[in-house]
């Protein structure tokens, strides 16, 4: 490798050709070694990658439905892959269900592309990646007594992040380094992800007061005639 920056070896599973082929060109931090249309194609190739980027909506032909949504996440996670969900899906209940199914991270397609590369690097390094909306949910879970393991410092950092505060600002406020602040947040995300994995989505709805919509794997697109 003669590249300037370390690259993360990823596979992209997306039914959108533009995304599959575009990531390779557009995101310098990613080494896209495989781009697959669906989970079955990916599992047939089994490329040596650190992270699997997975779109939640994979449209099969009407007669041949493909594995998608949280089922796809669960299948890949059970097979030992580190799954980073890369999606337009914004409903929190669905994103929660992805982490419940074993995803290591969630990134929205609306995010700037460098954020995707950073998220892939984080997931490759064993960290958990969550969206701003899920950070708010983590704070809610903590405040409602669902994350009893959080230390006072971890709660401080989480409260700042849930309010959109940067690590730089949190670090200055708490007299710690930025790296320490983001380390606390990594711990929070691990504990939150562990909590989500151990509780059924129905439990989470009750505990966190989520709307009961969207916990199934079918995406709105499927519901169209």
């Amino acid at each position, binding site marked *: 490798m003669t590249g300037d920056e370390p690259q993360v070896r990823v596979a992209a599973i997306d039914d959108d050709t533009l995304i599959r082929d575009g990531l390779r060109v557009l995101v310098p931090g990613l080494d896209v070694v495989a781009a697959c249309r669906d989970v079955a194609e990916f599992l047939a190739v089994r490329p040596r990658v650190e992270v699997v980027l997975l779109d939640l909506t994979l449209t099969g032909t009407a007669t041949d439905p493909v594995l998608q949504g949280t089922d796809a996440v669960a299948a890949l996670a059970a097979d030992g892959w580190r799954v980073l969900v890369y999606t337009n899906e914004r409903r929190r209940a669905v994103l929660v269900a992805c982490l419940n199914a074993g995803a290591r991270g969630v990134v929205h397609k609306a995010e700037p592309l460098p954020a995707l590369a950073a998220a892939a690097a984080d997931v490759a390094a064993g960290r958990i990646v969550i969206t701003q909306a899920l950070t*708010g949910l983590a704070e809610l879970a903590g405040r409602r007594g669902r994350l009893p393991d959080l230390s006072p410092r971890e709660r401080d950092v989480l409260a700042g992040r849930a309010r*959109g505060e940067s690590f730089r600002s949190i670090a200055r406020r708490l007299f710690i380094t930025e790296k320490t602040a983001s380390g606390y947040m990594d711990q929070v995300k691990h504990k939150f992800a562990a909590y989500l994995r151990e*509780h059924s989505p129905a439990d989470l709805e009750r505990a*966190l007061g989520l709307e009961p919509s969207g916990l199934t794997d079918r995406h*709105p697109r499927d519901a169209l005639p």
Partner: protein
Amino acid sequence: MKLIGGLATPALPTTPAGVELCAVAVFAGVRAVNLAQFAVASPVALREATSPVLLLVVLGGYLAESAAIGAVVVSARAYRDRRWGWADTATAGAVLLAQPLFTAASDRTGSWTAWGFACTLSSAVGAAVVFTRRRHIAVAVVVLAGCYLVATLPGAAGGSAATALGNAFAYVGFAVLARLLVGYLRRLAGDAERARSEAARAAAEAARLRERERQQRLLHDNISVLRLFAGGGVPEELDGPLRAQAMALANRVRAFLDDPPVEAGEPGPSLVSVLRAAVGDYRDLPVEASVELADGVPLPEPAAGAVRAAVGTLLANVRMHADASNVVVHADADPAEGEWEVTVADDGRGFDPAATPRGFGLRDQVERALAAHGIAVHVHSVPGDGTRVTLRGPLPASWEAVEPEGTP
């Protein structure tokens, strides 16, 4: 679960993961109880032992193995690794075979000098937890009972031999009962999990029907605009209005992809509904609203209108100046301070509040307008590190946090 202390402070969830944690507690608990019993009896046991040194050596090894397996199962929150199951069985067998090294033949049944029997019963319980296949459990029980009999029977008097045979059956009994219980709990948790997801599916089905209606309305509105663009050659006088409509539709599509708004069935205006309404006007921004912590905080008029206008002004500023990729509207309530708090933050350009004069928006629309309702405004911004504006207003004295069911 008192047995495992802080590990499971909220009640164990009635899920498969909860059952495994419960099984860990029972396995580790039985072992701990037996070792504690022995600790009480140990002065007598050491006095009666033929070789106290050997007793302590074997005990030390056993404690080390128990500590190791305890750490492994507690950190894994489950005892499902068969390798540890076999290791525990083998250790227990070795401990049983070693008993004659430090006990007189007359002490090998019914005495704490031969502590191996009581302590290794937990291995039979553990085997029923860790092994899924019956023949594996049977092999473990045969090893335990066999080692026990080999160590105890030779040289035993008639009465002691009968006791030893009876004791050997205890391994079988413990394993069978533990297997029965754990197997049943595992099936029960599986069924509960299925029932819960069924109920969730039914609720989701109803939600999806509503959703579909919403989609059809949205898509219907899109068709005419898309048709006009597809046709090309849009008349000049229609170009401006058509573009505006296309932008509005694009924003509605984005808003559509967000969580559906909670239907307002609330008595008066609440802080949460005011914020949702304010955010709803700025759907073209990458806004995330995390407002549940302020659920139930009432916000009567005219303060409600002022807050809505202020948050709108702040978001308009973000849209115009910040170039942000992440905008957060956050709400919280702090009964201890008697205050609610709203934060509007962006990760955009930021500015130096000391050096920059406040524009009309921030000064008049936000700070002055809110001060009239007893709401304090704090602006925090650093060039290159975004802007965070915090609003704090009074909570009614009677206010109590809304807690969903099951909160400890």
